[in-house]
């Protein structure tokens, strides 16, 4: 899982949401229910609660829109982008937008909730039998008022259970007419309309007047899409017209002819060649519940996951019996804690496994080793003449500069002078002369040194090592560790090449979900830095003589010379 930079999250657990408008694809009560279930996915595993508001500003404002829908990220017609949402925060932050050029369903074809009839609002049952014929959509057969209806069981003739399907002749939604049905024909801007229209609007939604003269009465509502309606195209909401002519040939069903993307379409008049009116044929559609659960994950502070089965994986895939993946749960509980936990606590590190060093790799004796012969230190070795150091790090509050068996140090307090050179082997006898990186664990004061694929752990005069870095869970592809950054209690980031891993120091194991790309998280620094260290609240990335300094908000706020700014040469 990933969270957004700075672990953006709500600073309260009673989160509010508001549904600003509806899609014509599903009855509004189905949409309300899909959103409520999507929120429940997250409230089931955290202390969060979700309250729906019907006016004013809510934390999460939910809306449907098409193409350019009022923010800098336009949608792209049918398929492709389905929806997006913003991380927690004020204003548009936290909001969720759904592309209404999609076919919104519950993931398995048109979700048709009936009204009136004798089934108390039950869903249509497709297919159903009526007078010996099988129907997979609503029909006006058997009626003279042209109202589409369906059976709510598999066999109407046996059960006589039915209901009316969404239709502009039955009701409208939104608008200012309290859901009254359309009146046809109606007058709008002096013209007569005998069906729903998008005229007069720039958002592509179909509407109608609920009196016979809109110019006088200004009463209107939005038209629900019939389940047989085409999606997108330039005749949104109109039903297919079969047969229709296309390029001189007659079609009695949907076709992908004429398109390179294989999508099924139909004409909504008898002759496409003349009228050029068309749309995509209804398909399985996208589960509004699943997409909403994903988007609300963003609105709560989760970024995309790289686990294919996780809800926060970027791509859509329909799942019959949905349940949250552990990766999603770990992520959301990292931010808000678990259902019972009073405080949001990051997931407990895995219990330390038994030390699995194999005998062949027995660490050095932990008794202070006999002093080896000291190589005399050449006091004239001048740190200011080094172009680059093997590693730079803070140990015991002093910035250390390591190079070829020697080190210099400078106290963190201001205007302190540089001390050294000193011999590495004098202070840390077990260490080799080239140190790739080092860090001091703030909790235990243990000092970790990395050289090539081996590492040593010093505690006072006692040393454990050398051991292979694979013991920490680093892959055998890592040739050397080039940087180490303490991150909070017991976590250290280890850098190598263009990647970094997070080490749980207590568990002595790399956390799941790593490696990650350095420049994806620490934007603006070279991704081939040969040294990374923390000093006085800043992160330093070094390459040759230069350093890039990054502040706590991960902004590069200074680029300079190691020699002049750190060594004070």
């Amino acid at each position, binding site marked *: 899982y990933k969270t957004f930079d700075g672990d953006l999250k709500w600073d309260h657990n009673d989160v509010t949401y508001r549904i600003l408008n509806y899609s014509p694809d599903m009855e509004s009560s189905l949409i309300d229910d899909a959103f409520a279930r999507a929120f429940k996915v997250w409230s089931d595993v955290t202390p969060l609660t979700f309250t729906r508001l019907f006016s004013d500003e809510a934390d999460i404002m939910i809306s449907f829109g098409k193409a350019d829908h009022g923010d800098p990220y336009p949608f792209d017609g049918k398929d492709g982008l389905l929806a997006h949402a913003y991380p927690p925060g004020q204003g548009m932050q936290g909001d969720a937008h759904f592309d209404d050029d999609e076919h919104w369903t519950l993931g398995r074809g048109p979700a048709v909730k009936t009204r009136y009839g004798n089934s108390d609002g039950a869903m249509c049952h497709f297919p159903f039998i009526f007078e010996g014929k099988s129907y997979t959509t609503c029909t006006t057969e058997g009626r003279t008022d042209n109202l589409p209806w369906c059976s709510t069981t598999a066999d109407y003739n046996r059960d006589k259970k039915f209901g009316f399907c969404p239709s502009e002749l039955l009701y409208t939604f939104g608008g200012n007419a309290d859901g009254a049905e359309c009146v046809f024909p109606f007058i709008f801007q002096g013209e007569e309309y005998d069906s729903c229209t998008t005229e007069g609007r720039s958002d592509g939604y179909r509407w109608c007047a609920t009196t016979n003269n809109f110019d006088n009465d200004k009463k209107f509502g939005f038209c629900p899409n019939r389940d047989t309606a085409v999606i997108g195209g330039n005749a949104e909401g109109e039903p297919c017209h079969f047969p229709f002519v296309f390029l001189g040939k007659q079609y009695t069903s949907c076709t992908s002819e004429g398109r390179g993307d294989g999508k099924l379409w139909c004409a909504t008049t008898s002759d496409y060649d003349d009228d050029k009116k068309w749309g995509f044929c209804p398909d399985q559609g996208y589960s509004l519940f699943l997409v909403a659960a994903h988007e609300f994950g963003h609105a709560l502070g989760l970024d995309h996951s790289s686990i294919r089965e996780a809800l926060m994986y970027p791509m859509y895939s329909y799942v019959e019996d949905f349940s949250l993946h552990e990766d999603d749960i770990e992520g959301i509980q990292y931010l808000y804690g678990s259902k019972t936990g009073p405080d949001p606590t990051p997931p407990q590190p895995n219990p330390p496994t038994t030390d699995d060093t194999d005998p062949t790799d027995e660490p050095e004796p932990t008794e202070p080793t006999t002093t080896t012969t000291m190589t005399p230190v050449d006091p004239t070795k001048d740190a200011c003449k080094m172009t680059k150091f093997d590693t730079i790090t803070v140990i015991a509050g002093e910035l250390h500069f390591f190079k070829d068996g020697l080190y210099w140090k400078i106290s963190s307090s201001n205007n302190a002078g540089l001390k050294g050179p000193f011999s590495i082997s004098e202070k840390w006898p077990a260490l080799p002369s080239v140190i790739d990186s080092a860090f001091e664990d703030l909790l235990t004061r243990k000092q970790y040194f990395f050289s090539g694929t081996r590492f040593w752990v010093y505690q006072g005069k006692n040393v454990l090592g050398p051991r292979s870095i694979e013991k920490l869970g680093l892959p055998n592809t890592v040739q050397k560790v080039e940087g180490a950054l303490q991150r909070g209690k017991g976590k250290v980031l280890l850098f190598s090449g263009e990647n970094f891993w997070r080490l749980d120091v207590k568990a002595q194991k790399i956390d799941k979900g790593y490696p990650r*790309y350095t420049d994806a998280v620490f934007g603006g620094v070279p991704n081939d830095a040969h040294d990374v260290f923390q000093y006085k609240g800043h992160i330093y990335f070094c390459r040759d003589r230069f350093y890039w300094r990054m502040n706590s908000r991960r902004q590069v706020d200074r680029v300079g010379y190691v020699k002049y700014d750190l060594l004070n040469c």
Partner: protein
Amino acid sequence: WSVPLKSKFITFPGDILKNMTDSELAESYLKKFGYMNTLHRSGFQSMVSTSKALKRMQRQMGLEETGELDKSTLELMKQPRCGVPDVAN
């Protein structure tokens, strides 16, 4: 057997044109979802090569990190998805 219809592709009025070449599709996908030309808060504009950007996308999606626009990568780019970028900016 009937001679397969020579499919003639036409432009449908109101269709949000998406017929792009594979490399155009890949380029726009990698940019749209933050894998390329990421602008950093510090204003640092890092130009990432297409191959490296592809590797990063393949890692995020759990694909083999070839750095090539191979079939499985292209297919994944055509799948419906969330509009939030994968590489946060």
